[in-house]
């Protein structure tokens, strides 16, 4: 976990004002420790990604909310799918084959 000023110092194009705005917009969700903000390693990676999209690829603020929303939904969906896949993988072979057959059938229709 690192604090706000450490994060701003760590990531090159980031300034405190932009970070505050992104937090206000709900793009970044730091942990709140009384008044202090704490960022974990996933928050840092996320801020880095937003910086890249915002400063390098010039995705504007309105579009960014849409991009992040879709991205978060995509990751949530992928994790759900991953959980399902490991549940299927834990089944006996006959069950797995039956599931695979039905999935194939549904995907091709």
């Amino acid at each position: 976990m690192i604090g706000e000023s450490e994060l701003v110092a760590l990531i090159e194009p980031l300034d405190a004002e932009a970070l505050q705005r992104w937090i206000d917009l709900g793009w970044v969700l730091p942990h709140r420790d009384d008044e202090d903000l704490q960022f974990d390693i996933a928050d840092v990676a996320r801020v880095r990604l937003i910086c890249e999209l915002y400063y390098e690829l010039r995705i504007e603020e309105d579009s960014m909310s849409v991009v992040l929303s879709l991205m978060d939904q995509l990751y949530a969906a992928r994790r759900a799918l991953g959980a399902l896949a490991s549940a299927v993988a834990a089944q006996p072979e006959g069950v797995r084959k039956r599931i695979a057959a039905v999935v194939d059938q549904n995907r091709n229709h």
Partner: protein
Amino acid sequence: MADPYQILGVSRGAKPDEIRKAYRALAKKNHPDLHPGDKAAEARFKEIASAYSIVGDEAKRALFDGGKIDGGGAEIHQVPPRSSYRQHAEGEPGFKYDRQWSGSGGGIDEDLFAELFGRGGRTNSSGADVNYTFSVPFTEAINGAKKRVVMGDGKALEISIPAGLKDGQILRLRGQGQPGQGGSEAGDALVEVHVEPHPAFRREGNDIHSVVPVTLGEALGGANVPVETVSGMVSLAVPKRSNSGTKLRLRGRGVPSKSGAGDQVVTLEIVLPAAPDDELIRSVVEWEAKHPYDPRKVPGA
């Protein structure tokens, strides 16, 4: 090694601007964090980033054009390994960024699994966030205020305006959005606050700017004049021989902030009496005949 110009789809003579545009377009299409699981996109993105690191940089581009480095930029270019956002987004169970949009917390997870295991739809989902906008008077934004505001949809909110609030700032009121279902948390109210302009004050960062009229005598002879600040009236010492446009600083009379309050910057404006009489006109004109000066002359020109 592949030709970086070819990778970016630009000609050898392309202007830096064209190269930047081409890079942005390709990077958006192939960014690995936006294309999870797409190995081809990830490989393309690496190629694009590497190509751009050469021809997007004037010095390296010149080296490449002169045959001093190859397309891989091996001599000077190494992409530092970075922790991809994807590792976290896909790796952590109960990842917090799942739940923030639309506030449903449902999305694919619950719906899909409910259908799968016959749990019968969503029974508990937290409420959606609701967006509001409203305006506050200039001085309330500077000094802070507590307000009860009824929004367009009839919702009454107790809003605490923090001192020094900026135009367009968004306040998050926890639990003031749509109610949750089945005992889940309510969403938040996101209130975008606009600051109304003030007839006398203008804000620049944490400083407040204003114009104060003074008489000819006050400007020349010096005086203490009353001045309105965002925190009430104060007395401003106008030094002798001040002029129209002279700027004076009232320390600490600006916008309050954690790192210390800003200042109020006062610009003096000499104002002649509404109806100057013959005595004033005669004495000034006679004085000027003896001491001519040209205020339109640029100093040092």
